[in-house]
């Protein structure tokens, strides 16, 4: 087995540096060409990941086949070895240094088999196949991220999609790279936009019925967001939609409208709709140059999977001037009873940077429930002052939310949704600022560490929390405040046995009792923040349930030091 130092692809990823420049974050020292290093690729069981497997992914305890576990994005495993009663026996099975000292925000994908194969990504655009049982790299691949790509918020890569014999990864230059999942060899690459205009890609795509769905990032760079559907076999683009419609913008403001879609969508296989998360308008803070509600920014949009037509949209922050993206991957929860509305049926659910949760009708987007705030809301939804006013406007939630991109989870057992949210005050002001394609375009200034005297007296001082919400009432059922000088980042996972797993910015992996929020188990992983999203699977050959999580800070946005670890825990039956 080659070490990381001998693996050329891991070496290329680890030598790649991301630094803040005047333009934003930039990639340096990336390889000029893609690098593939193959190890024991014969160990990968050769069978198609079928559509049936993907359709049943939510119920399968032996796999984690897509970013959100199932198309409904519940992040819920039916593997049932680990329970509240025995979780204290959970032990570290193995850990790896994955190479790139990156933001580590992703969810590994687990294809079942003998052995199960993990596809793990980290920034910038690095993926590897791992024997999930032994923790050994089978092949690794580093995409040649261009050095003139600029990023607002780190070199994230949050995961892959798998389908048949392929694995798909978004690339920082706003493309999708298809690889042979047995060998790591390149099959096709499709560029979805010109990264020199500010576009990038950071999320895990999803695949359904031979169609791959991928979005756009770059809302801080004055781009116009889009989402496109690609033939998963050939890489041919099948349709493209823009969340922001031209007729809802004034003149050429549409060209820098923002409204990017920078996290994975959720799929409703019955209605054949995609539910998208949509980000902020551009520029972030000066709304006078983009008048109107800036339709579909900071929204959920429901899109026909065959045509890309928008069926409905629901906006959380009209004419947003606070950078309140709505990035959380939506959840589709079926057969819900909402007593006070006498409603019975499916719901689409998410929480936003506003700190509210939103329960929507899946056919209309009509708001059924708006939940109680997950965090404090102070100086909230008020006009952002111009810098000339010399008035400190410290608002809470700050720019990072509330609920930002962090993937939430749902438990059918408790009926609750679980969120990792930020209770951080930020100061903002707007000013006129020039936009040049490819450059940072905020239209204002931000202070993420406002002076103490400018922070509202009512601020409770808790920077973050993990909270459980009943989506039928919006009630916050329990909340665990977590304090640190870093931001709480990353996602969570529920189990059919009543546990909630979540990493913290203080380096711990915690297993909560999902019902009442009691901490049942904690493991100190590192002095680095845990910014990854836990995943789990059961291996029938070892009769163990595994839990994997990536460890590392999202060093820039999350304040924490970056890391490059993958930790895998296990518990035998």
């Amino acid at each position, binding site marked *: 087995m080659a070490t990381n130092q001998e693996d050329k692809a891991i070496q290329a990823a680890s030598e790649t540096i991301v630094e803040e420049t005047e333009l934003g974050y930039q990639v340096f020292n990336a390889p000029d060409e893609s690098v593939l290093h193959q190890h024991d690729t014969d160990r990968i069981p050769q069978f198609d990941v079928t559509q049936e497997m993907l359709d049943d992914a939510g119920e399968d305890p032996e796999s984690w086949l897509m970013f959100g576990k199932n198309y409904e994005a519940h992040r819920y495993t039916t593997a049932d070895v680990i329970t509240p009663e025995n979780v204290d026996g959970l032990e570290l099975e193995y850990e790896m240094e994955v190479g790139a000292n990156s933001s580590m925000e992703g969810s590994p994908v687990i294809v079942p088999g003998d052995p199960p194969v993990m596809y793990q990504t980290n920034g910038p655009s690095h993926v590897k196949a791992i024997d999930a049982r032994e923790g050994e790299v089978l092949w690794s691949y580093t995409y040649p991220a261009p050095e003139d790509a600029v990023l607002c918020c780190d070199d994230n890569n949050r995961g892959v999609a798998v389908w048949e014999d392929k694995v798909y990864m978004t690339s920082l230059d706003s493309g999708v790279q298809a690889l042979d999942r047995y060998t790591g060899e390149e099959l096709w690459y499709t560029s979805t936009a010109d990264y020199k205009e500010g576009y990038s890609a950071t999320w895990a795509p999803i695949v359904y019925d031979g169609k791959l769905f991928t979005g756009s990032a770059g809302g801080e760079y004055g781009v116009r967001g889009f989402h496109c559907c690609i033939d998963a076999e050939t890489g041919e683009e099948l349709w493209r939609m823009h969340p922001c419609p031209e007729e809802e913008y*004034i003149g050429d403001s549409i060209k820098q409208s923002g409204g990017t879609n920078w996290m994975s969508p959720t799929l409703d296989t019955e209605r054949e709709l995609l539910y998208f998360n949509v980000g902020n308008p551009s520029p972030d803070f000066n709304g006078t140059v983009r008048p*109107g509600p800036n339709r579909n920014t900071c929204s959920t949009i429901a899109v026909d999977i065959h045509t890309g037509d928008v069926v409905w949209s629901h906006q959380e922050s009209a004419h947003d001037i606070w950078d309140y993206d709505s990035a959380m991957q939506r959840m589709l929860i079926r057969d819900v009873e909402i007593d006070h509305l006498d409603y019975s049926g499916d719901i689409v659910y998410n929480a936003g940077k506003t700190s509210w949760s939103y329960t929507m009708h899946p056919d209309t987007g009509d708001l059924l429930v708006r939940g109680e705030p997950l965090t404090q809301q102070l100086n909230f939804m008020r006009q952002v002052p111009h810098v000339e006013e010399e008035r400190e406007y410290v608002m809470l939630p700050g720019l990072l939310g509330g609920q930002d991109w962090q993937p939430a989870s749902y438990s059918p057992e408790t009926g609750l949704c679980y969120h990792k949210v930020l209770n951080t005050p930020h100061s903002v002001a707007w000013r006129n600022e*020039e936009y040049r394609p490819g450059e940072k375009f905020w239209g204002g200034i931000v202070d993420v560490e406002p002076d103490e005297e400018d922070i509202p007296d009512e601020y409770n001082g808790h920077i973050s929390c993990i909270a459980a919400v009943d989506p039928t009432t919006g009630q916050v059922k329990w909340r665990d405040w977590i304090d640190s000088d870093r931001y709480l980042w990353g996602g969570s996972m529920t189990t059919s046995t009543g546990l909630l797993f979540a990493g913290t910015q203080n380096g711990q992996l915690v297993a909560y009792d999902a019902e009442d929020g009691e901490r049942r188990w904690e493991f100190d992983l590192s002095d680095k923040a845990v910014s990854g999203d836990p995943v789990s699977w059961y291996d029938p050959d070892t009769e163990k349930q595994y839990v994997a999580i990536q460890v590392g800070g999202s060093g820039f946005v999350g304040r924490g030091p970056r890391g490059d670890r993958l930790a895998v825990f296990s518990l035998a039956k």
Partner: protein
Amino acid sequence: MGETYKPRVTARDRERLAADLGTPEVSADGEATFADLRAAVAAGADPQFASMGAAIRADLRGQLDAERIDEALAGLDEQLRRAEEVREVGVPERVGKGDAGVPEAYRELIAPVWEAYDHLVEVGFFESLSSNLPAFTPEHIDGTARGLLTADALATDLADVGFDERERTALLMDVVNNDTRLSRWVPTADIPEGVEFNVDYVPPLYHRAVGGGLLWVKSLDRHLVQKEILLTEDVLDDAFWRAKAILGGVAVFLRAARDVASDEPEQTDEQLVAGLSGGAAITIVNQEELMREAYWLTEEKRAPTRAR
């Protein structure tokens, strides 16, 4: 409902308005009414405004289709006369799934405007205004308010389509009392060197003002239907008034645009500038207030929930 949607105009507001305009307290109780203010402000010649108005006419001579603007105005007037029917409905019932199932109520009010609006965009009307009109400085706003008072647009034309005395006073206050807010809407050409927006992507100020106002009204149907659980009668009142006020601003603006198109102008050059600037200013202030009052529905503002 009914009278409840009316804008709040206090005695203190009227006093401030009179003070801002430099008019004496003309009514017996010390509260200047719109008619009092109009009577007290003499129509005076403002050479700068006159020059601007003449330049706009010269710039656009022969390019505007008076008939299209007339049709829009006639349609808008008709809609304004029946506007309260929309408030009486409150939140309309859905007629189907998705965005397509949202009934058109507010969108009907603005339906007559679009063709004329598109025409103004096509002929470069808004670019011309950018070339010939200054920023919303206190001086320009002062001149605009005086021009509005001496012209018929606010005093007579809007009265004819259902804006009562208090509403017209409120619209005048929107212009007079908001110079700082209006000055934030910077004309593209006035943006200082080094901090410019890309002029190719930022529309002209007057286009942003009028078009933005229309987009806010256009969005109301969907907003009200989707957010019904959050709405109170106060929010509905505010939403209706702000929408009506935006349409009032558009009507004032279009009347001035029609005068530019006319072979036999009815407005002086000063009044023309006042109509364009005043109409745009009204749309700016009221779209921001519509957003603040009816869209940003904080916990304090929302209807009590039955869920918890």
